[in-house]
Structures are given as structure tokens and as C-alpha cells.
């Protein structure tokens, strides 16, 4: 027995490391290398991938990793943005300028068009959100371009359902995630085999935390939209959260509106992303605040997750990222 199963090889002496000591990768380098490897697996395994790019910090880091993976070649995929129509103008401007600066193709599809064409019903209420309708446009776009892989910037530390998802996450033709039927995913060997109509969601920065992202942004001097830094903004104070006033939210009598110094920790729709009161105007300041904070990224800034305990899991099952 022991002959066959005795697998552990301890023959390498520990002194061997000696002069290899300088060949130890720092944690950010390790994460970067893992992500680049995933990007190249997508390029090698799929015919029509796409990178979902919103102009938020995670997707900006994603594009920087793609630059490292494929330059001086072009990306083997376009950047795709599903625009809800409720986005921050600063993020949209950044999105367009950045895509142009790196010379990559950007495809934008609008949720407003899907709503009109398919007669979808918009949410009502104070913070009427298009978050759910976004999935329709995403699935239509996947069909329009026959995308077989969509690369996204979701991180496992964001939310408890995300913490469960594979790096290559297979979705059926309705984009649905079945958490009880995930493929085994061994080592760094990714199985991207799918049938026609199915697609794979790929998450190259699965193993990065919010703080890793900020440290990487600092180290690589990555530029971000201005809303990530402290600025004056008119906000509505609502159940302990600060929501920017805009044409998309309905103010009522008695609403507390004030101008405050804020920054954004995440950038989603204006209707469901809250700002953080802050004077942090540099990356260093932001990192200090993130280290000190007692609230999670989504907990502090997302209004949409509060609906129910399993909000994210349910949205993923329905085809959401």
C-alpha cells in the first residue's frame, strides 16, 4: 500500500532556497501573474470573448492586467459596457477616454433600448433601479455578438455568493448560474468547454480583495475616475447612507439634502450606489481609510444588496454577473 500512495516528496532540501531568495514574488506580483494566466487561458480557449468594462476601479484594473497579458498585441476581445442610463457621468467619460487611449474597441449597449424594444417594466419608487433589467441587455448583447466568454471584475471577497463561484463559471443559455452544479476546478487548469449557446463568465481577479486592488492601483500608478476621490456633492441622507441627488431619484418632502465632502468606494448605478463621507484626496489617504474602516465595501455602498439575505445569489441564478 504505502508504496503506491506514499506520494509526498520531501527530497528537496530546505537549504536549496539560498540564492533563490530574491526570486520570491510579492503577493501583488503573485496575484497579477495568476490573473494574467487566466486572461491568456480565455484567449487560448474561446473564439469570441468579451471584457465587461464599466469604468469602475475593478474593471479598470482588469484592463490593466489585460494590457500586461497581451501587449504589444491587441486584445483578443472588445470591451463591452452595459449602460443602465443611470451611470455617473465621470465614469462614462473615463470609460470612453480610456478605451480610446489604449486603442481598443468599445461596445456600448443601453438598457434603455432594451426597455423600449421589449416593453420591459421599470422599477418604481424612490430609488427605482435598473440593476435587474441590466441582465436582459447583457444576455441580448451576448446573443448579438455570439460571445462565448465574458470576463468580469467580480471579486470573491465582495459578497458571500461570489465567494462560492469558480473562476471559470459556466452559465446556460439563459445566463443562469447553478451553484449546486459547479464544475470541479483543479489546480490552475481551466476547463472552458461549452455547448453552443452557453457561455462562461470568467473572473480573473477572484482572489483579490478590495485592499489588494487599491494597493495595486497605488503601486502601478493607475488612473481612476475623479469620483473615487473626495469632492463636494449634493447628497440625500437616507437610512444612514448618502445617495447623490440626480434626476434618477425622487426627492420627497422632508428629505434631508446637503452638500458634503464625499468619495465613492464602488461605482455602480447612481440609484443604488452610496457615497462615503471623506476628505481622502489621494490614493494613500484612501488606503488609510480602507484599512481603518469597519464596514465592508458592499455594505457601505450598495443599496441593492439590502433587499434580502440571498439577493446576490438570486441575481446570479438569473443571469446576472
Amino acid at each position, binding site marked *: 500500500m504505502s508504496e503506491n500512495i506514499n506520494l509526498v*516528496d520531501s527530497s528537496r532540501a530546505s537549504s536549496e532556497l539560498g540564492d533563490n531568495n530574491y526570486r520570491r514574488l510579492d*503577493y501583488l506580483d503573485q496575484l497579477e501573474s495568476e490573473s494574467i494566466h487566466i486572461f491568456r487561458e480565455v484567449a*487560448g480557449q474561446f473564439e469570441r470573448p468579451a471584457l465587461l468594462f464599466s469604468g469602475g476601479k475593478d474593471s479598470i484594473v482588469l484592463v490593466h492586467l489585460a494590457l500586461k497579458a497581451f501587449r504589444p498585441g491587441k486584445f483578443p476581445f472588445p470591451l463591452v459596457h452595459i449602460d443602465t442610463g443611470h451611470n455617473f457621468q465621470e465614469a462614462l467619460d473615463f470609460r470612453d477616454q480610456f478605451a480610446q487611449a489604449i486603442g481598443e474597441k468599445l461596445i456600448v449597449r443601453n438598457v434603455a433600448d432594451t426597455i423600449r424594444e421589449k416593453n420591459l417594466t421599470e422599477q418604481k419608487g424612490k430609488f427605482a433601479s435598473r440593476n435587474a433589467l441590466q441582465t436582459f441587455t447583457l444576455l441580448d448583447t451576448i446573443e448579438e455578438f455570439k460571445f462565448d466568454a465574458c470576463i468580469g471584475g467580480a471579486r470573491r*471577497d465582495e459578497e458571500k455568493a461570489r465567494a462560492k463561484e469558480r473562476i471559470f463559471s459556466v452559465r446556460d443559455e439563459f445566463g443562469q448560474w447553478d451553484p449546486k452544479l459547479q464544475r*470541479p476546478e*483543479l489546480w490552475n487548469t481551466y476547463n472552458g468547454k461549452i455547448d453552443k449557446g452557453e457561455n462562461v463568465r470568467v473572473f480573473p481577479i477572484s482572489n483579490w480583495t478590495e485592499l489588494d486592488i487599491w494597493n495595486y492601483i497605488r503601486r502601478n500608478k493607475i488612473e481612476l475616475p475623479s469620483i473615487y476621490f473626495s469632492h463636494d456633492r449634493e447628497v440625500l441622507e437616507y437610512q444612514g447612507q448618502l445617495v447623490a441627488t440626480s434626476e434618477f431619484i425622487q426627492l420627497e418632502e422632508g428629505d434631508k439634502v446637503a452638500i458634503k465632502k464625499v468619495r465613492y468606494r464602488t461605482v455602480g448605478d447612481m440609484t443604488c450606489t452610496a457615497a462615503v463621507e471623506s476628505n481622502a484626496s489621494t490614493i494613500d489617504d484612501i488606503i488609510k481609510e480602507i484599512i481603518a474602516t469597519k*464596514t465592508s465595501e458592499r455594505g457601505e455602498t450598495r443599496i441593492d444588496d439590502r433587499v434580502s439575505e440571498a439577493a446576490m445569489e438570486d441575481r446570479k441564478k438569473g443571469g446576472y454577473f
Partner: protein
Amino acid sequence: MDILRFITAGSVDDGKSTLIGRLLYDSKSIMIDQLEAIEKQSKNREDGEIDLALLTDGLRAEREQGITIDVAYKYFSTPTRKFIIADAPGHTQYTRNMVTGASNSDLIIILVDARNGVSEQTRRHSIIASLLNIPHVVVAINKMDLVNNSQDVYNNIVIDYSAVAASLGLKDITYIPISAINGDNIVEKSASFPWYEGESLLHILENVAVANDINYTDARFPVQYVIRPQTDDLHDYRGYAGKVISGIYKKGDTICVQPSGLQSVISAIEIGGQQVEEAFAPQSVVIHLQDDIDISRGDVIVKTDNLPTIENELDVLLCWMGNKPLKAGNKYLLQINSRVVKAVVKEIEYKLDVNSLLQEPSPDQAQLNDIVKVKIKTASPIPYDSYKKLRVNGGAILIDETSNVTVGACMIQ
């Protein structure tokens, strides 16, 4: 700062998820809103204690049943290390999910319930740790609070487990008594075990030496993608993109492409667009060669003085993960790093009995979660190393071509 990837394993309800919850809680890695959320859910419980397992049991079905179904990944760091934790399910039914989490781990924490001692599932997960060649093992004897923190109970389990470990050839094992629920010996050393001479679990995790686990000797570079811009100014640019999975490559090294055997010399190495003199594991790089030779995705660039094995007949220890049984004669795709070939399972030599660790020769078939020794023939020779020697170039997966599902984890001998 470096990274330690570890997994928690062991039987159902041995306290894996609770342990991770504790580790995160006591190292102050849980945010207020996350804590409030699990406090709210724990209200339904009779004892009114907060259930720390809810931190990792992120699926509705898991929370409803109070069990873990699939791996959850959690993250925290201390000033010296970033930790990537995989919380595995204990149920036999979900063993393949445990294997998924274990395959990337540097260290495995095997929990044993102090009241029950070494169980079948303890053995199963230990076998998997051994098969996957996880370099470091911590055996955490949990729920010590339920056995009056008894040193005798602890010692007996250590003796029992040592026998299992010896028969499996597990090395670098550390034993520790804990109470996950009370936080004893998790972050701080606890006064509950005055007889215990070792350190706290976190201390062990922070100090285990992972640097030696990287192989700098056997250079292996699987090509993932060929970068060819074909623009006017980069007309002749041809770079081989991939990750150095082991070893070191330097400019001027004579290399050999496997399986073709074609030779050339490294003319340049790039990392993120910057030219460098050398690249080492686990860096993602672009390699340039002096000659225009035929290289495509799945080929492996190695050095002429250190070749992998090139064979189309493989002896394989296999964790079967398919819902349909494996039978001799079945055909699959075999994927090793970026190379995919057709393969047939010629013979099932034996099945491992998880309890006795004995081999049952020539079984008719292998069922979900069985561990078997098989002979596999591939349609063309593949370059590989024995898993035991070089984990990164000796592991392969089997894919069912009709369902596209990953059905087997191969440790090539």
C-alpha cells in the same frame, strides 16, 4: 508579504466553517455589517449564540441545512501574510468540491471532532491531501470543550492519526488542540490547554515556510497564447505568452519545445512589456526565440538539459468526479495545463478502500468520489513530470466530451 493558501477539511460538523469564522472574527477581519447580518440570522437559534459558520456558508441551501455544499473562499491578512482560505464541505457527497479547494492549497487543516476521533471522512480527506501532495498538514483536534480539554483524549487521537499519516506518507504534520466555538488556540494561545506546548493556529499559519515549495530546478513553460501583432512596426514580433510554472529561464538559454523536440535559444524575455534578464516561477511572461519555429498553444518550452517525460501511456492515480461511473474503455479529453488531447482509460488497476487503505484489484467501475489507479492512453504523447516530483506539471483533468464536464483529477505517476 507573501501568500498562504489553505483549506479546512474533515468530517461533517467537525467545525470547519466555525473555525474559519473564528479565525476571521478574532483577527478582526469581519466587518460590522457582515457581523450584523449573521447575528440577525443566528437569532432563530435556540442558544442565541452567533453562528460563525454562517460567514462562509453563503448559499441559501447551505444556510437552510446548516451544512457546507461547495467551497467558499475567504481572505484575510496579517502584517506578514495574505491568507486565501478555502472552506471545504465535509459531506462525502461533495468530496469533489473539497478536491477543487485542496488542489491549490499549500496547507491543509484537517479537523477532528475530539468526541469522535479519526473517522472515515478524516481518512478520506487525508488520502486526498496525500494524493494532491499538499506540502503542509495541520491536524486540529476540535471541540476540546466537549471533552473537558482532556489531554488523554487529545493524545489518543494524535496516536491514531499518526498511524494514518504514516501509512499515507504525510509529512510536516503539526497537531493542535482547539475549540473553534470558543476561540481557544485559534488566534491566541489558550490557557485551557496548559499541557500543550505548541503555538496558536494563527501563529502556525503565519510561520509555515512556503518558500521551499517552489521548484527552481525543473524549468517548465507551457505556451498559452502566441502574441503576433502583425502591425507595420511590429511585423516580425512573435512572443510566446505563458506562465513559468517551475524553474528559471534566462536570456541565452538553449531551449527545446515539447513534444516536437525543436530547439532554439531564448532571445528575449518580457514581463508586462518590460525586458528582463530572467524569469522564474510563478511569473507570467512572454518569451522570444532566435528562430522561427513551429510552436502553438499547449506546447511546453523546456531546457535541453532537463527534459520532462514524453509518453502516451500514463499510470495515473485518479479521483473520479463524474456522476456517471468510469469504466475501462471510456474515452475522455485529457487536459494538462494548456494542452488538450483525446484519451482512453485502458484499465482500472485497483480501487482504494478508504477505511482499510487496501487496494481492491480490478474493479468493474469507479463511482463518484472513488480513488482509483488507472492506465490511460493518450492520442499523442504528452510532456509531463510525475506529480510527486513536480505538482505543477503532473496534474491533469479528464473532461467528458459529451457533457463538457470535468470528471476526473489525474495525478500522473
